[in-house]
């Protein structure tokens, strides 16, 4: 049977025994699970035993593009990475753009499932069909930029794409990221720490075969539509990336400020995407097959004498002579501008860019890193933490120097950074003293930088995403499905266009109802992972901070929260009182086998 959008080849790598095997699950598997979250939840339920330590040998790490990933159309450069999360203890997943996911598809593989743990550092080299587990002792300890350079030099092909961890992943920082192409990150829920626990430094990929598509003509038409309507549809992304609206969010009282307390921050205009463009930006870069080019590249030199490029262009200089920011690590997008800027009271654009670069070369999530520091700073301000606790560091809001210092300490688990590397919820459990009132987490994951008191539309995402405080709309059809099939959220495709892309890639001929069913199936699978991990309805809740009023917005009430949660349970066929998917829903979605290890939790 002819197949499109996938190869029917999943690579399993057992690092404990240094073996690989190929799974050919058949076309029905792809139609049933789609990719991304569907693959991840399926493999977790199949292979990870209940109660397994996320950083132990029984966890698995899944690299899962979707059936659209690698299609020749803008937005098709996305892939997901998933495992049991060492940060939340539940379902872990994050998505990334760039080129790596499409390159993996072009190398003839639909996904990689990594089992076990290596006893010494290794990396994977996937050169089309050929898969090699190679020694990575010489790469261990290297920052991402140096490691990528060494791998490409060693393998001798500049077109190789590398996904990897930095020192933060090696040091099991619980919010460590997996970076690819140096400036793209699957950074949420600590997937980098899982990779580090497996002593897997990197996966280098080289592909040469385009993925077969069912209807190339439709995809070409949509790609042309994106490039010919750039001005109308993607102008802001093209010119600024994200973060062009921060002044508006601030004006409306919804900008995260001083650990989500104020809603307005002084000097937002000094660190937004406009300030970046005017002062420190060198370029904009694209992901695979995308004409939007929405990724910022910043370049700052420490000294005036270094601030002229080979082409004679003027490069930004740190006026205080403190930092150099290397353009190979890209630049900060909105979440990072807020988490490493406004939410810490920082309006120093050079320091924010430096903090972002540190997270990128050490391989850490900018959101959780910034939010954990913000939490610690509030504890310090309130006297719950003192200089004696922090080894002499004064954790004051508005101090960019201490943030830069702390990020390095977290990545290398030095001094007080060792505790902060556990994430804000574990720090709070250690501290006690009412510090839980300063947390900004749902299910242990620090919320992204869209205050749910201001942006009502984000409430469902934070409450019901299987990963916790995730802003990507994982819980709804549109957001969840894009992550499943491997399609970027920033492309302004309407629902019909998104379906057209999926159908042109796969030839499935799905309609909106099928699309919703796939979203519901994959969300339900991820929910089952959380049910088995001990999460209950009470975990679908905001922490006290978001029940407090902001100066311009009311706190979220228990009734509002319950209404969102119950409406969703009902729509998805999960029991209203427990949030556990019902037996009827599991049958209807055809996931009885996946649910086998969760059976004791499920009632008719």
């Amino acid at each position, binding site marked *: 049977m002819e197949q499109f959008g996938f190869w029917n080849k999943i690579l399993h790598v057992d690092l404990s025994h240094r073996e690989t095997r190929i799974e050919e699950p058949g076309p029905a598997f792809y139609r049933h699970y789609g990719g991304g979250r569907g693959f991840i939840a399926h493999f977790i339920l199949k292979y990870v035993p209940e109660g397994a330590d996320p950083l132990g040998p029984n966890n698995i790490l899944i690299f899962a593009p979707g059936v659209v990933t690698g299609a020749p159309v803008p937005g098709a450069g996305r892939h997901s990475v998933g495992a049991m999360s060492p940060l939340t203890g539940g379902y872990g997943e994050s998505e990334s753009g760039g080129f790596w996911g499409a390159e993996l598809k072009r190398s003839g593989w639909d996904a990689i499932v990594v089992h076990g743990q290596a006893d010494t550092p290794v990396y994977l080299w996937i050169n089309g069909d050929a898969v090699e587990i190679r020694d990575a002792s010489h790469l261990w300890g290297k920052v991402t930029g140096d490691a990528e350079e060494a791998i490409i030099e060693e393998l001798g092909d500049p077109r190789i794409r590398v996904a990897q961890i930095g020192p933060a992943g090696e040091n099991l920082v619980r919010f460590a990221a997996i970076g690819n192409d140096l400036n793209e990150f699957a950074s949420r829920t600590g997937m980098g720490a899982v990779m580090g626990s497996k002593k897997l430094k990197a996966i280098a990929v080289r592909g040469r075969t385009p993925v077969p598509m069912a209807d190339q003509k439709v995809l070409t038409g949509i790609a042309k539509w994106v490039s010919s309507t750039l001005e109308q549809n993607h102008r802001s992304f093209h010119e600024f990336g994200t973060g062009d609206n921060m002044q508006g969010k601030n*004006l409306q009282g919804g900008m995260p400020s001083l650990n989500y307390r104020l809603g307005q921050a002084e000097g937002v205009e000094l660190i937004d995407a406009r300030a970046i463009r005017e002062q420190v930006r060198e370029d904009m870069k694209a992901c695979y097959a995308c004409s939007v080019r929405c990724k910022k590249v910043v370049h700052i030199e420490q000294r005036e004498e270094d601030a002229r490029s080979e082409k004679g262009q003027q490069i930004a200089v740190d006026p205080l002579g403190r930092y150099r920011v290397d353009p190979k690590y890209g630049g900060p997008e*909105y979440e990072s501008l807020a988490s490493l800027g406004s939410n810490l009271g920082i309006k120093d654009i050079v320091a924010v860019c430096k903090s972002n670069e540190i997270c990128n070369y050490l391989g850490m999530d900018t959101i959780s890193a910034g939010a954990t520091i913000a939490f610690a700073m509030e504890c310090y301000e309130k006297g719950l933490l003192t200089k004696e606790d922090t080894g002499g560091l004064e954790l004051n809001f508005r101090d960019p120097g201490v943030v830069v210092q702390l990020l390095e300490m977290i990545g290398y688990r030095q001094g007080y950074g060792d505790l902060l590397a556990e994430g804000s919820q574990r720090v709070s459990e250690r501290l006690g003293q009412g510090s839980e009132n300063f947390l900004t987490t749902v299910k242990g994951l620090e919320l992204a930088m869209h205050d749910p008191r201001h942006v009502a539309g984000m409430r469902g995402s934070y409450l019901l995403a299987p990963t916790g405080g995730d802003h990507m709309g994982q819980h709804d059809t549109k957001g969840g499905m894009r992550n499943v099939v491997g399609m970027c959220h920033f492309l302004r495709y309407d629902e019909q266009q998104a379906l057209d892309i999926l159908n042109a890639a796969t030839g499935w001929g799905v309609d909106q109802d099928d699309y919703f069913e796939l979203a519901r199936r994959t969300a339900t699978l991820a929910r089952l992972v959380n049910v088995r991990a001990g999460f209950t309805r009470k975990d679908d809740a905001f922490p006290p901070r978001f029940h407090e009023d902001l100066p311009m917005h009311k706190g979220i009430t228990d009734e509002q929260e319950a209404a969102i949660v119950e409406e969703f349970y009902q729509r998805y066929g999960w029991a209203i009182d427990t949030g556990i998917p019902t037996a009827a829903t599991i049958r209807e979605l055809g996931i009885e086998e996946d649910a086998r290890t969760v059976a004791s939790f499920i009632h008719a």
Partner: protein
Amino acid sequence: MNTADTNIAISLNLFGDLRRYLPPGQDGPMRITCAPGTKVVDLLRRLGIADEAETAISLNGELASITDVLHDGDEVVLFGPTAGG
């Protein structure tokens, strides 16, 4: 009295996703003339901005509502919702 004499002129800038409503190549702020009594909502409709509820409106640096009336010399900035990333 000539109507043109009574028209007011405002400065308008669009940030974020709303930039797509700017004429191609134009980077704002734009000068716009309109009739006295024009409200912010009239301006949004003239520009074709449909998502009124999600638009943050700055009128002379202060948060404004769509029912506010514009006056000669006003500086209006419209912001769309913030995307993450």
